[in-house]
Structure formats: structure tokens, C-alpha cells
């Protein structure tokens, strides 16, 4: 299998991206796919390892060497089959996943790893183009009905799996469109929304019902759900945003990143007008939080025409390379420079925001920071220490808080009477994804806290298996083993 010396013959080649000045002109995806010959060569770099660590590093357990081999041989259809055997939505992960598989790639020990994620994306795109991906409604239906609450990747994956098992699945989404964070959190330049729609059309054709503007616990009562369904999956995400409890956080111009991004996405979708959204145009934008959401805010701000974009991260600047205490094949914390970063931002690390400054009208005008350092002691949580005399004041019209999430919203938990874990997620284990209430399951960020799309899909798939078992006494839905590489 594979080309035995492919990794010696070919270097890693990533797909191209359009130049900054071109991509800032609109919100479209800006990647330039590799030609097929090059893609095959990239597939040929896979060494078909005796232990494919990538396969373990992938939370979905994608059969990476197996589809790489098919790509190398140009057998795209089979590659797509293999890929879909573990992943309901490779078009999402192929674009958005931070690719822990590539960090675990054996070639990555001393070379650039295989471009697994890009191969994944190309497999699924070719499969769509060739029409290989189409609705496959189940041949037999059971009499069981399942409600999936929340239409993010976890909910959608679970819905598709449960539908495949023959159950009648209804997905409830409180927003106007299906997709959850995929639709409202991720900017189009990373995931054009027609990609979601393309998949949704298939899910619908397979018989899944979608109810939008249906906020369970608000405009759809818990009782209706309980009465109408044999099992319920809660996959509403970890949408409780983290705030910043400092002086001035009420000022106009201090906004949650998610609000900013959602409006921008709605604008791009044509649902909102430019003037009705929160815009960064001509503003001094400071994005607080150095993660992926922060990065998305930067990219969006630049597209909206911000005057200056600055980014703060309270943690110290990670190293470029793999830190010694996070060796291969584990997921390392290292400096990540996204395409958005490259579009224009000043990044500051080890910096803590102390206060928002406003004018008398309550408009944000600036903010105050102090530099910090982290004290590490064996066996203790790292301590944050402010460095005296490093206070600094910044001009700022728009502060975007991209500080992460602190768990699930309370509504569902309260109304269903669900136990929470210590991080305020809904309590359920990966053993069976069931909550303390019989017939009520939870998966994705709602269960595990904020995480990656790939984990959401994975949890959705696992939960579907357990729901199926709950309903039928046994399940043929695939179940992943517990051979995930741990985090260190």
C-alpha cells in the first residue's frame, strides 16, 4: 500500500492561497486547490505506517493511510468511501480542523507531515463534484423518533447517523438557519455557507426534518419534545461566553466576538444590511483573546475595513517549534499564525487588559493593559504575575472579546432537570452519552465544553450509537474505540 519511497521523493506542498490584497476584497474562500497530479504526490508521501499515529490522533479515527493510498492511486471514489466511513462531514473538517492528525503524523517527526487535511478536503470536494455524494435514505424505518436539539456539527452528525439507523429524526435550531457555530461563528472566508447548504440538502433528502427558529425551552416547550420523541439529544454547544470583569466593560464598543462574527456572517448571507451590523470599518479594533475566534475577528475586521487591528493574548508567546514537554505525537501548543493574522494585525502576548476607557458618552475610546508573566511550579496550576511598571494605554474604538466559552446555556439543563459537571457542562460520560434523565443524551461542546468541530462530529456519532442502542437494544452504528491520543 502506498508508495514506499514517496516521502523521499516529494516535499510537502500545501494548497495555494490568494494574495492578501485579493482576498481582503471579499469574504470568499481564497484557497487555490492543487492539481490532481500534485495531490496524488501528496498522498504518496504517506508512509503507510505500521502504527498510523495520525489515525489515533484524529478524534474521528479517520482511516488516513487508507484514503491517502487511494488518493495516491487516483481512486478517489474509494477514498471518499473510506473517508465517509468515519466522518460525516469531511468538507467541514477538511477546511476548519486544526489537524491534530498532522501533528501526530510519523513523517512529522523529522519532516513536514503529510497534508492530511488538504487531502481530506480534496477527496470530499471531488466526490461532490463527481456526484458520488448523494442522499441515501434508509431502506427500513423504525418506529422511533429522535429529537436533536442544536444543529451544530455534533447535532448534524448524530442526526445523520440516527437517520441511517432508520429512526425519524427532527433537528431543532433556535436560529433562522441550520448549522450552529459553523454557520454563525465561522466566517465565510474559512467556510462558505453554500458548503453547509450542500450537505444540508442531502440530510434533508435523506429524511431528516429541520425545525428552525425553534428554541427549545423558549418557543418550543420541553413537554412537546418529551412527549413527541423517544429519545432526545442535546447538542446545543457551549455557547455561554466568557466575559471580562473589569472596569468599563459596559462601554459601547466592547462586544463579544460571537456577536460581531454572527452579524458579519448574516450580512454576508444577505440577511442583514451593512448598516445594521456591528462594523469595524475605520475603527481601531482590539481583539482580546488569541485563539481561533480572535483570529476570525481579525480577518473579519480587516475585510470590513478596520483602521488598525490589534490582538492581545494573556498567555506568553508560544514557541514556533514543538515544545520539549509536548513531544511528538502529542498535540503541541505552538505559535499558530493563521491566514487572518497575515492579513494585518499586531499581536501582543503576555498582556492583560486592566480597564476599558470611555468618553463621557459611554463610548469606548481606549484601554489599559499591563504585561504579565506566568510562574510555573511542579504540581501547581501556573500563576499569573503582573510585571510592575508595564502599564500601557491603547486607543481603541472597538474591543472584541474572544475569550472562549464557559459551558452550556442553562435553559435546557434547568428545564430538563439535568446535572452539570464542575465546568458547567451537561454531565454525561463517553461511555454512553446519557444524562441523568433517561432518554436524554448530550454530545458535542454541550457535554465536553468548547472544543473542535472534529470532536463535535465524533461525539455526535458516538452518541447516535448509544441512542440507537437505547432505542433498539443494540446498534449497528459504528462506534469508535478509545484509542485517542491524549493531550499532554
Amino acid at each position, binding site marked *: *500500500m502506498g508508495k514506499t519511497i514517496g516521502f523521499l521523493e516529494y516535499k510537502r506542498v500545501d494548497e495555494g492561497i490568494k494574495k492578501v490584497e485579493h482576498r481582503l476584497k471579499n469574504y470568499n474562500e481564497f484557497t487555490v486547490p492543487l492539481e490532481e497530479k500534485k495531490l496524488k504526490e501528496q498522498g504518496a508521501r504517506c508512509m503507510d*505506517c*505500521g*502504527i498510523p499515529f495520525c489515525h489515533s490522533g484524529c478524534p474521528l*479515527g479517520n482511516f488516513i493511510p487508507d484514503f491517502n493510498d487511494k488518493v495516491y492511486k487516483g481512486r478517489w471514489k474509494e477514498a471518499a468511501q473510506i473517508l465517509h466511513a468515519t466522518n460525516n462531514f469531511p468538507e467541514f473538517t477538511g477546511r476548519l480542523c486544526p489537524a491534530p492528525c498532522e501533528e501526530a503524523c510519523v513523517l512529522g*517527526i523529522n519532516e513536514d507531515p503529510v497534508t492530511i487535511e488538504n487531502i481530506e478536503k480534496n477527496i470530499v470536494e471531488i466526490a461532490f463534484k463527481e456526484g458520488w455524494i448523494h442522499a*441515501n435514505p434508509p431502506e427500513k424505518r423504525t418506529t422511533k423518533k429522535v429529537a436533536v436539539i442544536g444543529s451544530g456539527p455534533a447535532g448534524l452528525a448524530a442526526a*445523520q447517523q440516527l437517520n441511517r*439507523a432508520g429512526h425519524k429524526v427532527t433537528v431543532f435550531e433556535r436560529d433562522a438557519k441550520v448549522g450552529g457555530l459553523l454557520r454563525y461563528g465561522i466566517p465565510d472566508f474559512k467556510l462558505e455557507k453554500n458548503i453547509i447548504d450542500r450537505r444540508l440538502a442531502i440530510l434533508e433528502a435523506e429524511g431528516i426534518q429541520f425545525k428552525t427558529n425553534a428554541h427549545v425551552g423558549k418557543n418550543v416547550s420541553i413537554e412537546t419534545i418529551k412527549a413527541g420523541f423517544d429519545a432526545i439529544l442535546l447538542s446545543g454547544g457551549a455557547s455561554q461566553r466568557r466575559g471580562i470583569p473589569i472596569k468599563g466593560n459596559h462601554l459601547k464598543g466592547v462586544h463579544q466576538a460571537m456577536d460581531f462574527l454572527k452579524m458579519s456572517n448574516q450580512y454576508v448571507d444577505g440577511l442583514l444590511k451593512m448598516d445594521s451590523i456591528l462594523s469595524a470599518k475605520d475603527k481601531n479594533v482590539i481583539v482580546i483573546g488569541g485563539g481561533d475566534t480572535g483570529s476570525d475577528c481579525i480577518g473579519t475586521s480587516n475585510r470590513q475595513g478596520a483602521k488598525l487591528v490589534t490582538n492581545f493574548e494573556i498567555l506568553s508567546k508560544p514557541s514556533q517549534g514543538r515544545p520539549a514537554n509536548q513531544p511528538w505525537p502529542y498535540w503541541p501548543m505552538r505559535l499558530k499564525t493563521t491566514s487572518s493574522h497575515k492579513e494585518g494585525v499586531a499581536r501582543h502576548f503576555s498582556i492583560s487588559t486592566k480597564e476599558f476607557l470611555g468618553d463621557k458618552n459611554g463610548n469606548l475610546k481606549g484601554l489599559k493593559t499591563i504585561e504579565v508573566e506566568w510562574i510555573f511550579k511542579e504540581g501547581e496550576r501556573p500563576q499569573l504575575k503582573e510585571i510592575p511598571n508595564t502599564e500601557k494605554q491603547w486607543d481603541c474604538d472597538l474591543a472584541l472579546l474572544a475569550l472562549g466559552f464557559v459551558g452550556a446555556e442553562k435553559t435546557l439543563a434547568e428545564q430538563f432537570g439535568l446535572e452539570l459537571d464542575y465546568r458547567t457542562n451537561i454531565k454525561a460520560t463517553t461511555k454512553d452519552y446519557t444524562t441523568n434523565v433517561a432518554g436524554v443524551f448530550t454530545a458535542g461542546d454541550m457535554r465536553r465544553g468548547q472544543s473542535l468541530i472534529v470532536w463535535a462530529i465524533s461525539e455526535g456519532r458516538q452518541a447516535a450509537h448509544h441512542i440507537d442502542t437505547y432505542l433498539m437494544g443494540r446498534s*449497528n452504528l459504528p462506534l469508535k474505540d478509545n484509542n485517542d491520543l491524549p493531550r499532554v
Partner: protein
Amino acid sequence: MLTRQGMYLPEFEHDNCGAGFICSLKGVKSNNIIHKALQILEKLEHRGAVNADGKTGDGAGILIDIPHDFFVKNCEFNLPKEQAYAVSNVFLPKRENQRKFCIEIFEKHITEQGLDVIGWRDVPVDESVLGKIAALTQPFIKQIFIGKSNTILDDFQFNLKLFIARKKTEHEINSSKISEMAFFYLPSLSTKIIIYKGLLIPEDIKLFYKDLTDPLFVTRLALVHQRFSTNTFPTWDLAQPFRYMCHNGEINTLRGNVSRTLSRQELMKSDWFGDEIKSIFPIILPGKSDSAQMDMLVELLLMTGRSLPEVMMILVPEAWEKNPYMPEAKKAFYEYNSCIMEPWDGPASIPFTDGNYIGAVLDRNGLRPSRYSVTKDGFVIMSSETGVIEIDPKNVASHGRLEPGKMFLVDMNQGRIINDKEIKDEIVSRHPYKKWLEKSLVHLADIPPKKGPIEHQEDPLEKRQIVFGYTQEDLGIIIQPMSQLGKEPIGSMGNDSPIAILSEKPQLIYNYFKQLFAQVTNPPLDGIREELITDISLTLGSDTNIFKINEDQCKKLKIQNPVISKHDLDKIKNYTQNPDFVVTTIAMLYEVDKGLNELERTLIDLVKQASKAIDQGGNIIILSDRGVSKKMAPIPALLACSFVNHELYKIGKRARASLIIESAEPREVHHFALLFGFGASAVNPYIVNEIVSKQVKEQEILGFDYLEAINNYNKAVGLGILKVMNKIGISTLNSYRGSQLFECIGLNTKIVNQYFPNTVTRIQGIGLREIEREICKRHTSAYNTDTIDGSLHLDFGGQYKWRRSGEKHAFNPLTVAKLQESVRSNKHSTFKEYSDLVNGQSKKLMTIRGLFEFANFDPIPLEEVEPWTKIVKRFKTGAMSYGSISKEAHENLAIAMNRIGGKSNSGEGGEDQSRFYKDSNGDWKNSAIKQVASGRFGVTSNYLTNATEIQIKMAQGAKPGEGGQLPGSKVNPDIAKTRNSTPYVGLISPPPHHDIYSIEDLSQLIYDLKSANRNARINVKLVSEVGVGTVAAGVAKAKGDVILISGHDGGTGATPLTSMKHAGLPWELGLAEAQQTLVLNNLRNRVVLECDGQLKTGRDVAIACLLGAEEFGFATAPLVASGCVMMRVCHLNTCPVGIATQNPELRKKFKGKPEHVVNFMYFVAQELREIMAQLGFRTVDEMVGQVQKLNRNKTIDFYKSNGLDLSPVLHQVSVPEGTKVFNTEAQDHDLEKSLDFKIIRQAHPALFRKEKTVIASKITNRDRAFGAILSNEISKIYGAQGLPDNTLKINFTGSAGQSFGAFATKGLTLVINGNANDYLGKGLSGAKLVVKVPDSSTLIPDKNVIIGNVALYGATSGEVYINGKAGERFCVRNSGGVAVVEGIGDHGCEYMTGGRAVILGEVGRNFGAGMSGGIAYVYNAYDTFNINCNKKGLNIEGVKLTDDISELKSLVENHYKATLSPLAKRILGNWKIHLPKFIKVLPEEYKQALLRLANENLVE
């Protein structure tokens, strides 16, 4: 005899022997012949063994003419005239009443046959000479004299009646249940010969049997034999010779031979016997040795009217199948008889006699030495070695040797030697065999095919694949490559998955069987390089009455490769033209809903149907699992095949029909091997045919149409089966079929006894219930499960490469990651995580040790346990050669182990001398253990001198019984240098050591190596399998210092996947068996027991120690510590972390450090210490073998493993108090008597002052390995450089013992005036050896066999001049020696990789097989070269280049100077005329390598 207990099974005892005969051609009877014959045995004493009591031999005996005059004088009754009566010694019970009982029965049967009991005579014996063990089992010995009565019987009829009387007596007494019935035994019963034998050492035979020294006790001939048993529980009746023969070697195919002989009984009819014939059954008595059982068949065949030489030709045929030059009549004879009898295969040299003829036959492989001498005064002496009887050179008429497949015969009545051709020509012309074959034997290939689709009308392939448990790996890793390449796929890095019984994945029943393989007691074979001795054809149809010699015998259907396609099977099914073949198809299906009972019922029904078919004249039965459906599930083909096979035996119908298996199940070589091994005669894997056809259609297989691709697959399976057979030393499928050379692991006794009788299963396991459950599981998932869209159709498998949800592997992402992290960060806590993972996962059914838990705690403080620094001295790293792994990785391990005082292992690849010296920083790259494997790469005197331990690799865990190959591309100049070979020339490690075909050979090699370095321990590496305990006992008796028991799972390097998965056992079983057997034999104290095979943690080590190991080897784990990530591509040279690669770019990626390995060893030792503290052991010595500290872990509950019974593994053998269970003393190697020391005492000026010295000395065959000690002394002082040429010259007269000049180094010139035995110049390291006929001899040198087999094995440099002919395998694996010889036997220059061989005479068959380097010049005066050369890969040309001519000429000149060879003189005298008769043999690979080197300017 010891009974079975624990892991020990008595049936796995082996023996090998010394044998010989002497006779007077002139028919002169004398008592002296007896003395001389016994002298032969005494001179072969080193080939025998003595037991723990120091006195009891393993058995010896002598067969002679009946000394008529002696009996006339010594009997109190009157005897008829010579040969008109029969006489025999009779072994009788000790108790008088039982003795009387036996005598009465015997006399009754004699009288019934109309014969007379003339009288009984007490045999005078001296019991005082017996050893303790022998005395216990000593029978009462009387002699019986039987007359013909008054009827006129000819000799044949008289013998027939004697035979019937004896057989009936044996059967009656054996079924009488008297307590001492085992004592009753007749060594012989003949009118011509009599046998005296017993549990004696040779020199005591004549003391015990007082008759033998009486001057009237005279004979013309004497056949003698002594045993070397691996074990120590011999019995009197198994001493040899037997009635017609004795045997040196081993019959591997015994099980099949015996059961097939028994099955043929049903068909036996004879006018001579009439109704009596049934009363002589069974022909072959159970529970006897292979030789004894063969003798019984010989006896029967003699009763069919065949002559003794003919019988020998039938039982031990020469390799006729692939010999295009064999005369047609002879070939027809063999082919005809192959329809009657399969070969009794295995290494065998069989001296035989019926009193009229005395002779010997050597099997097709020729693996046992047999030398003979004819004297001018009319004696013929034959024995395993030459020089056993001192003969004045002037009296020698000729010296010769028995050649493979050849017979040597003396007609005692005519008083002459009859040569092989004459005997055989006469025998093969007795009947029109060729005509019979042409008329009656049908070849499958000749039946015209009918074209048809590959598919049947059946359920979709996809569904059926699931029913039969196919995985993506089966399709992609097994079937596709085999169909594409026609070869079995290979893999690397061993097997770290659970055995079938511990696997949570449903397993096919095949996986519960492990292939047996040869180690020590018999050699594995090389079916690739020695293809001409192999054959996988089979014949189908009914056997017929063995008494008849007519054309009915060959009414059979012959298949060249019995792995057949669907089209072939259709041909058989539809072959109606010939009424000789009646085909019946029986469905192997059962109604799955009805469950276990239905399965059982259907199996019984299968037998009924088969039986009925046979009754109706059916002679080909097809068992077919076609027609699987939602209702019907398949019965495992192996289960059905074996059951029908055995049940038909039981009801006496087996011989009348052949079984064909038409099944979707078999896909791997192992599956087919099992089906044939349990009785199938042909197999059609029809679903594989369909899969291949699909793969062709889908272009997964390219370049072939589907028929060709199927053919490729069938060919690959055929080759694979050949390899499986070869592994256990079998050459022909005809004798492998039904021989059941497998061990079960994980099946309970009930299912084995019922369906696989006579197969070993020792730790129990699942039964039919669980098997049915697994069938049902697969059937359900195919038929009763809705397929989920988006899921994959077939499971991946994960057997060969790790996959989530696939088969488990001990090394997986997490364990590898944790281990690497721990050794790099030196964090104990991380190692703890790793070891918890490994130990924890193994407790979840990964390994047998995982099922154990520690018990009987007796905690002591950790500080009281010996320090880790002491413990790690018992640690070793595995044998991995520089070549298989990179220089960096290899040296890394050596440095690490030297830092902590452990031992690293050179592997089979030599070692660069610069590593023998320490680096300036104190590090030392010298591998403490130097390995000696079958390729002998770089094994020189200096290499051995620099070892602390020398390891003889008998087998390798990953691929026991197989050789290896380092492709030329990997042999870069550095590697070539350390291996003393030529760069870019591929190197083959043969499957066997060509100097170890038996236990006495191993003993010899141990002696050789011990001589080469007296300070080094000799370590013998064995692989765990059933019987390894008895082998270990044999090794202890052969004086190995350390015995390593390797698990089946270890090993880097390339190996066929079949071997990786299906050969060998976990070390837990082998180690326990070895420990128990060694302790039982009181041999444990003499040896160190070592264990390896996927040892990963301190817990693993602790369990190994408790089971008996005191030293421990690690290979995979230290590699992982050094950066290995289990790529399993070692065979591809693409290791991405720079370990198993020679690619300079990849080697740069090696990031391992010695401290990583040190840390690993430290962590393991610490974990061990913690366990020791818990259990209460202060030292490892205290802990060895304390099995009471282990228990079966009760908490593991899994439906399959619940049936396991591990108590045999944890068995504590009962031995007298004080019996040591660990090593307490060193072996006595007995080197002080070595001739080397005598010479060294005289050679001081040469050794220390480099003064030229000449010494003269006598030498005998008991002076073995001369030169090894001497060379060791030279190497110690001068290193590899040795002494200046010709510094010390020694002139010997006499017959040199084995291994003359072994490892002899530079500066020595050793000359023999006389002759020499096997292994001359083994590992020659620069010395000059000369063997020439004595001056006083009248022999014509180039007609005289002057040296034995396997000369210059592994020679690296030096010169050898042989003034005469050599035996088989001259210059085998020579990589640098220069040799001139005047004629050689078969397989000359095999695997040669360098050096020069000049052969001035004839070469035997298969010359140059596997020769990849060096040049041979052959003087082809007899035009036989073309017939005999194996031309594959060789350039055969004239000697035309100036350089070649001058090289050749100077070599011939040297030869003349050294030996005064008349032949050399003739050739040189007329050089111009003779030169064109020379042929130059130049391997293509060597030629290319030389060109490449020339390009690289590396050649001067």
C-alpha cells in the same frame, strides 16, 4: 519412561545417532568383525550421549549373522542345519510368572503356524556393567530357536510364518494387560541374522552380552548403532539396530506415514497370508520411535515379495520429480510407487541388511554423513565418519561416500559391492512401470478445460466475504500481492497481537494452530535454492492393495499444484470419461439457527455421506461450502476436513478416497498448509478466485487476466506451502499431507480429541461451542444486520497494521509515545504510565502472562533487593545485525549495554574490528554477544575471540525454520566489510546451519566455538514450540552454556506474514517447558536459561524469571526507546527514523542516544525490583523458577479465554530435594584433551617469536576442530592480522576429526596426509589447509573421497588444497576462501558470495545454487557440468580473459605444489589442451557488483 507432566510431552523426544557396519566381502566369518564394529561405535562416542547417571547410554546394539557353530556348541538341544531354523533374543518380563505367560503365548502361536519350538537358551549377561537407569528397565533375556517342522517351506514362507507368529504374539501380549508387558520384545526373528542390543554404551555391549566375545561367535557382517537422544528416558527396545535397518536421522512425516499405512491395511489382501492377514494388524505398533515404526513397514513390504533394496527405494526415493536426466524407467518406477507410498521423509541415512544384502541408503537431501572404505583384504567399512577403524594406507582399496538419494549395497552371497545404478536398473526393469503410468495415471493438466464464469449462482460476494470473516487486509495485504506478484507477502517487526484464544476479534479456526518447525534435531530445508529435491504434486483416487504390483496402483489423478482454481475443480467434477474416478460432492453447511447441536450432527452426517459415497465406489470426495445463505452457515473447512479424514481412518475407508476442499475459507498459506496437513489432497479457494477476478476487473491487479492472476495466487500458495514444509524439514507434499505438523493453542482437549486427534494442545481453551458462536456471529453480521450507509463494507482487520477498533497490538500509539517520552525525559512517572498501559492492556487479554497475577506476597524493604546495576547485567539486547539496522542504531545499543554491563548482540552480520577497541571517551561499541547464524557472515577467529558470549541462532522468533536474505542493494561497502563479503552482492542466510543437521552436530559446533574462544559462553537460541524442552535438554547435554528460549512474537527484519503469525509459540509456554524438562532431567544447574520475545516491562521480566529464566533479552522495546515507531518497513529500507535502513539520508534521522536505552533498562530493572520486594526476593537467583508466586488471574472474564488451563505452565515438577532450578555450575567442555594444546606446547617459537616452525603429528577422527584453539591464541595476540604466512606448519598423518581447521587463522599451514571428515575449514580465517593421500597409498587421488561434507562453510579467507574428492556442499557460503579440489558432491558452492573455487573434477547436482559472488572454475572433462549446474543467476563461460587464465593457472600450480596432485600435473603438463575444458562460473550479481565497484573506483 517419564510420563507427561506440566508442559513436558514424552512423544517429543528426538534422537540422532552414530551408525555403521563392517562386512567381509569374501564372506569370511570372524569374531574380530564384532570387535571392529564395536570399535566403530567407540570412535563415534562424541556423536552419542551419556545420561545424568554417567553410565547409561541412550542405547546401542549390533546385528550379525547367526553364529551357527556357536549355537550348536552352546545349546543343550540339537539344531537343524544352518538357516533351517530361526533364532532371536527375546526380551521378557522380569517376573517369572509373567515371563512364563509370555513364553506360553509365543509358543502357542509358533505351533499354530506349524513351526517347532526347538528350545530356549538363557543369554548370559553381566548386569554389573549397567547404569542405574538401564538396570531399572532391564528385561530378562532368553533366546528362542524355532524350526520349520517337517513341512517343506522355502525361506520366504518360513519367514512369513515367523512373522505372523511374532505379530500375533505381540498383539496378544500387548492386549493382555499384564503389568510387565512392555518388557516383551523381539529384537529380531530370522534365519539369518540376530541382534544384540540394549541400554548400553558401546564399550559395554560386549561386556554385557558375554556371547559376543566367544571365539566361536563369528559373523561376516555387523551392523552397529548408538543413539544420542535429546532426552534421558530411553528404553531397551528402542535401542537400534532394528530387524532390518538402523537409522541416523529423523522421520519428520511420521504421523502421516503411520496413519496412511494403517489406513491401507484395509485394502491388504495376500494369498500368502490368506485370512491370517487381519491378525497381523496393526502393522505399525503405536508409541515406538520413528525408526522402529519404519522398520515395521519395511518388514511388511518384504512380505509382499519386494526385495529389501526395492523397499528402500520406495520408502526413501531419490529426488526424481524434477530430474530431467533420470532414465525414464527409473523415473517411472518412482512415479508408480509414489502412488503406493509417500516418502518417509526427513534426514535419513539408513544402513540396512537382511543377511543377504547389507547396504545403506541416504535420503534425497543427503544431510547425514556416510563414509565407506573398502580394503584390499576384503572388508567394507561404513560409518558416519571416516577413520573409525585404523587401516594401513597401503591396504585401502577405495574410500567413498554415500551420495544423496543413492544406495550402497554389498551382496554378501556374491561377495561384491553393487553400485547404485546396477541395483536400481535391475529393480526398475522388473515391471513395465512406464506403460502402466501412461495407461492409468491421469494428469489434471491434460484434461481439457471448460470455460465458464468464475462465479457461481450464489449470494453476493460482499455478504459471503463477511460470513467467511474477510477483512480489507485479507484483500489488500494477502490476496492482491499474491495474485499480482505470485509470491507470499512479507512484513517486519514481528507480531505483537494476541494469539487467537486471547483475541476479542472472531478468529478462524486456523489461527488456533501453530506450525511446527525444525530446530536442532533436524534441519529445515531450502526449497528455493534446492528446488530440485522438492515436490508439491499429489495424486487423487483410491489406494489399492499394497501386495499387488500391477497397473491398478496408478489409476490416479495427478495434480502438479494441488491449490487449484475453480476451473480445475470443474474439470474434476465433470471428468466422467474415465470410470476410474467417481466424484462425490458433500456440502459443508449447517442450519445456523439450530446451533451447536446441528453443527455436531452435520459433521457426523458428513462422515456418513462420505462413507456411503465410498461404499458406492466414490474415490474423490469434495467437501464444499458453496451455497451459504441466510439459512445455511459454513462448517469450518479445516474442522470438516480433519474430522472426515480421521473418521474415515477409524472405519477403515480412508485409503479408498481422496478429499478435495472447495471452500471460501482458505486465503492464507497457513490455511492451505493446515488443510493439507490434516488430509486434503486438493483445495479450491473459490472465493479467492472471485476476489481476484474482481480485483482484475477493478484494475487493482494489473497486467494479468483473471486466470493468470488466479494462477499467480495458486503458485504463491504453492511456494508458501513448500516453505511451511521446508520449515520442518519435509521435501514433498505427498508425505506432508496428513502429517499434522501443528500444535494447537487455545483449543480444548475435547474438541482436539474429537476432531483433530493426535494433535498437541496443552493449555486447553475453546471448544466447538465457542467456534459455533463465532461462526454464528459472522453469519449474523452478514445476513441479519442492516448495512449502515456510510460504513465500510469489510473490517480493516488490523492484524498487520494497527487500526483503531482493529486487532489489538501491544505497541500502539500510546505505548510507543509514552515509552519514548519516558526514556527521553528520564521521567520515572511517565515510564510508569507506559508500563501500566502495557501491563494493563496485557491483563486485558493480550498475552498469556497477562493472565497471571503475582501471589504469595512476602514483602521486604526495597533496599534489601539487589541494586538495579546488578540486575541489568542480566539484560541483553536482541540480535539485530548491522545491515538489518543502521550503524548508528547498532552502535547505540552496544554503547548503552556496555555502559551498564549488560550485553548487546552483534546479530548475524559480523562486526567491524575497530569496534573491538574502546573509544577515547570510554564508550565501547563492541557487542558482547557475537552471533553465529546460518550465513556465518564475518564469523572469523578474531570476531569470536572478541566475544563474551557466542550465540548460535538455531531459529528466529519471527520466522523459525527459515533463512533470510539481505538484498545486494543493502550491502554497501561498509556492511560488506564487516560481513567479509563483496559490496552489492546479496547475502543469503540458509534455513539450516549447514553444519547442524542434528543434535550431535550442534554438539560439534558448540565444541568448535568453545575452542575458538574458551572464555566465551556458548548460547543456543531456540524458539518456543512444543518439544522445545526436550531440545533444550539435548542442548544441555550437547554442552551449551546458555539456552535462550525466544517467543514467537519477536524479531525485526523481513519475514513472510505466514511465519510471523503462525509459527512458534509465546515464550511463556516454551520457557516453562524448558525449565520443567531441564529440572526433571537434573540438567538445569548446568545451563543458564534466557528468555526473550516482546519483553516490555518489569512485570514481564518478573514473570519470565518466575517461570525459569535468569537472563532476559529485549529487542523491540530498546528500538522503540531509540526512536522506532513500528513502521514495519524494515524490509523496505525506508525506515523514516534511521533505524532499519542503510539509506544515508534516512540514517541522518536517527536520534536515539545510548542514555535512552540505559534509561529503559533502568526503569525495567526498577520495576522488577519493586515486584521482587513485594514477593520477598532479594536476588534474581532466589526468584528463578518460583512458580508458586504466580496464579491465574481470576478476574479476567472472557468467553474464549475462560476455558484456558494454565496449570501446566505453572506446574512444579517433582524432583528429589536439592535439585537445582537455576544455573549453579559451568559445563565441562572437555577441551583439555584437545590436540591443539599439544601443538601449542611445541609451537612457542612460532606463536611468540614468529619463527617458522614445522611440527609433525598423528591425528585421528577423535581429534576434532583442530586449529580453533590455536587460532584463538593467535587472534588474542595479533588480532585479525594473524601471523605471517606459513609461520607454523603442521604435518599430520591419519584421519582428521570433524571441523579440521575451523576458524584457522593467518600464518598456519595445516597438512593432512590421510583424509578428513566433515566441516573442513569451517569459518576459515586465513590459514592454509592441505589434504592429500598418504605417500604409501595406491589410491588414485581424483577418484578418492578424501574429505567429508560442508567444507569451507563460511570461510572468509585462506587457501585450501584438496587432493581428492569432497562431499556435498563444498564451499557453502564461502565468502573469501580459495579452494582447489578434485571433485565434489551435490550443492557445491551453494550460497557462495566470494572467494574462488577450482574444481578439477566432477560436480554434483545443484551446483552454484544461490551463489551470488566469487568465481568457480570447473574442469569439465566429463561433460556433466551442464546437467548438474543450477544456472539461475549464473554466467557460464569459458576461461578466456587473461587475468582469469593466469589466476586459474596459478591456483592449479599452487595445488600441485601443495599436494603433488597427479591430476594437476597432467593438466599443467598440457595446459593448452586442458584450458578450454575449464568453465568459469560467474554470478551475474557479482559481475554487476564488480562493475559498480570499478565505477566507484573502489577496486584497485
